[in-house]
C-alpha cells in the first residue's frame, strides 16, 4: 500500500466525515445556546437572596457540573422517550437532538458558575453605593452589575464552547452519526491497519482547525478586557 493511495482513500472518505462534523457543530451550537439560556437563570438564581431559589439553583449547578458528561448523555438518550405525544400528535425526537439536550445540561451548570463568578467579581462597594442612591436590588443587578459582567463572561464562555465541541464525539458512543462514528465506519469499511492513523489524524486536524481560532479569540478578548 503506497502513501499516495492512502491519501486518496482518506480524501475519498473526507466528505462523508465532514458531513458528520457538521452534526458536531450543530449539536455544539444548539447545546451552547440552550445551556447558556438555562445557565443565566441558574447563575442569577445562585445569587438570589430568596432561600428556595438560591438553594435549588446551587443544587442543580453542583449536580450537573460534577457529573461526567457521558453519564448525563446516557440519561438523556436512554431515559428520554423516542417519540413524544403533544396534544394528540406524535413527534419523533432523533438521537442527536437528545444528545444535544444531554450536552446542554453540563453547559448550563458550568455557565451558571461563570455568571455567579462574574457577579461576585464586581466590587461589593458598587452594590452598597447603588443601594445608598436608592436603587432597588433588581435595577442594580440589571442596570449596573450585569453590563459590566458581560465582557468578563465572554472569554470563559468561549472556552466553555471549545470544551463543548471537543466533547461532542462522546455522542458516537450512544449511536449518533457524528464525525467520530463516521471515521470509525470508514476505518471498518477499509479494513486495513495502515488506514487507521491517517484517518484519525484527519479527524484531529478537523477539530483543531475549528477550535484553535476560538481559543485564540478568547485569549485576545481576555487580554483586552483584563482589569488591572
Amino acid at each position: 500500500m503506497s502513501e499516495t493511495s492512502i491519501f486518496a482513500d482518506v480524501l475519498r472518505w473526507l466528505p462523508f466525515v465532514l458531513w458528520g462534523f457538521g452534526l458536531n457543530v450543530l449539536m455544539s451550537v444548539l447545546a451552547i445556546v440552550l445551556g447558556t439560556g438555562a445557565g443565566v437563570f441558574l447563575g442569577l438564581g445562585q445569587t438570589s437572596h430568596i432561600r428556595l431559589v438560591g438553594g435549588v439553583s446551587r443544587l442543580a449547578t453542583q449536580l450537573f457540573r460534577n457529573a461526567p458528561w457521558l453519564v448525563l448523555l446516557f440519561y438523556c438518550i436512554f431515559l428520554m422517550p423516542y417519540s413524544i405525544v403533544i396534544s394528540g400528535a406524535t413527534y419523533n425526537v432523533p438521537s442527536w437532538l437528545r444528545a444535544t439536550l444531554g450536552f446542554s445540561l453540563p453547559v448550563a451548570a458550568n455557565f451558571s458558575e461563570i455568571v455567579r463568578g462574574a457577579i461576585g467579581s464586581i466590587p461589593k462597594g458598587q452594590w452598597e453605593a447603588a443601594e445608598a442612591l436608592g436603587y432597588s436590588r433588581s435595577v442594580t443587578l440589571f442596570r449596573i452589575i450585569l453590563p459590566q459582567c458581560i465582557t468578563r463572561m465572554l472569554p470563559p464562555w468561549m472556552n466553555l464552547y471549545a470544551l463543548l465541541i471537543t466533547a461532542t464525539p462522546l455522542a458516537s458512543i450512544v449511536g449518533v452519526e457524528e464525525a467520530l462514528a463516521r471515521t470509525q465506519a470508514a476505518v471498518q469499511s477499509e479494513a486495513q491497519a495502515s488506514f487507521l492513523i491517517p484517518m484519525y489524524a484527519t479527524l484531529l486536524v478537523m477539530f483543531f482547525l475549528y477550535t484553535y481560532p476560538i481559543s485564540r479569540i478568547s485569549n485576545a478578548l481576555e487580554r483586552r478586557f483584563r482589569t488591572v
Partner: protein
Amino acid sequence: MKALKTFAFGLALGLGAAVARAETLDCGDDTLCKIEATKVLKVGTKDDYKPWSYRAADGSFAGMEVDLANALGQLLGAKVEIVKVNSANRFEFLAQGQIDIMIASATDTAERRQVVGFVHPNYYSSGYNILLPKKVKATKWDEMTGQTICAIQGAWYNKPAQEKFKLELLAFAGTAEVESALQQGRCIGVLSDDNLINVQLADPKWADYYMPLPTQDDAPWGIAVRKADLDKPWGVLVAGAIANWHRSGKLLELEKANGIAESAYLRKMHEALKDHLATQ
C-alpha cells in the same frame, strides 16, 4: 435585541423541523399496516461488519444484510430507510420503534429473545475460530490455553472462548485496530467469526495466515422484530420472506455476490426447503 429575537425564532423553527412529526395512523400496534400506509421500511443495520454490513465512501450502506433489507423493501413496495445501529443500542432502537426490523448480525440467543422477537427460520449462522499465522502450528484448541489472542469488543463469543479455552483476550473496537495490534505483535492470533476469517483469507494480504482449528459453537443469526410483532402479520410476513429466500437460493446467491465463502448452514437450509418438483 431584534437580531437576537430573530435568531431565537429561527432556532425554535429549526428545532421544530428536527422533531419530525410522525404520521398519526389508525393502525394501532400493527407494524405491517404502518409500513404499508407510510411506504417506508426502517431497517436497523450495523456499519462495521464488512461484508455483511458496512459503509461505502459516499455514505450509503452496502453488504449482504443491506441487500436483504432492499429485498424486503421491494417485496413490500416500500422505500427502505437504513438506520445505523451498533451492538449496544440495536435492541433499544427496535423496542422504541426507531426501526421496524433489525438485520444487524445478531446471534439468536435465549437472553436476547427476552428483549426482542427473533423471526424464524434464521437467515445465517456462524461459529468462532482463530486466525493464526502459518508459523504457529496448532491443531487443537487446548494448545491455545493462556495465549494472548486479539478480539473485537462486544462479540458474543468472547466470553465462551475465554471460559472454555482460557484464552487471554485483548479486545479492540474493530477489525482495523485488531490488524494493527497483530502486526505490532501484541497477540498471536485473532478470535473471530469463522465466516469473517474465510473472507479475510481470500485476500492475498492474509496469505501467511490460516485457520487450523475446528470451528466452535456454530450459532444462528436472527432477524428481529418487536416482541409484540412476532406472531402478528409483520413477524409472519418476515418469517415467510426468509423461508422463501432459503427455498429460492437467494441467500446463497447474495452470500456469493458479497464475496463470502459458502456457509454450510445456508446450503443445508436450501436443501431442506428447496422445491421438490424443480428439475435439476
